[in-house]
């Protein structure tokens, strides 16, 4: 599965199938939340939250790809990521794009 954030795939002709998306909501356990709260007092990277967001992005992407594969797509173009806070310490990541079929010439 080819994943790109452009609206084309270099050297390929494509046929649009449908919008596909994947999403997830992640949080860390209270121990990590407390440790990261203390980290904000001294500054620097919040590694646990960074890991959490990386995991969330990977899972959301996997779900989007699964939806595209179910539709018989070869690639997803125009991929965009978005995130928002759902509650204290929990973030939603949503990824969406256009599933396309590559037309063999």
């Amino acid at each position, binding site marked *: 599965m080819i994943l790109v954030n452009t609206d084309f795939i270099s050297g390929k002709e494509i046929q649009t199938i449908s919008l596909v998306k994947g999403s997830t909501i992640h949080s860390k356990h209270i121990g990590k939340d*407390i*440790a990261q709260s*203390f*980290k904000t*007092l*001294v*500054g*620097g*990277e919040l*590694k646990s939250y960074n890991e959490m967001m990386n995991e969330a992005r990977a899972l959301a992407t996997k779900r989007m790809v699964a939806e595209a594969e179910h539709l018989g797509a070869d690639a997803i173009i125009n991929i965009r990521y978005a995130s928002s806070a759902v509650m204290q310490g929990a973030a939603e990541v949503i990824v969406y794009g256009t599933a396309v079929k590559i037309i063999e010439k």
Partner: protein
Amino acid sequence: MNLHIKKMIVPIIVSVILVLYFVVYFGFLIALLDGVWKFILGIIPLALSLVMVKVCIERINEIKKGEEDDISKY
């Protein structure tokens, strides 16, 4: 003064103040409470002070590794 040392001053001061606060709080709990409660409740400020020390050390290591604006290289 070296930029790294300047950046370390505030995290160290904040950590020392908070650790002292938790240790004094732990001391009060030990002095005022009786029996097993002094240990059960005393564990909490001790654990928080250890977490504070850990994040301070993590921050100092980050500063030593150098977090200067790398984007200027591009």
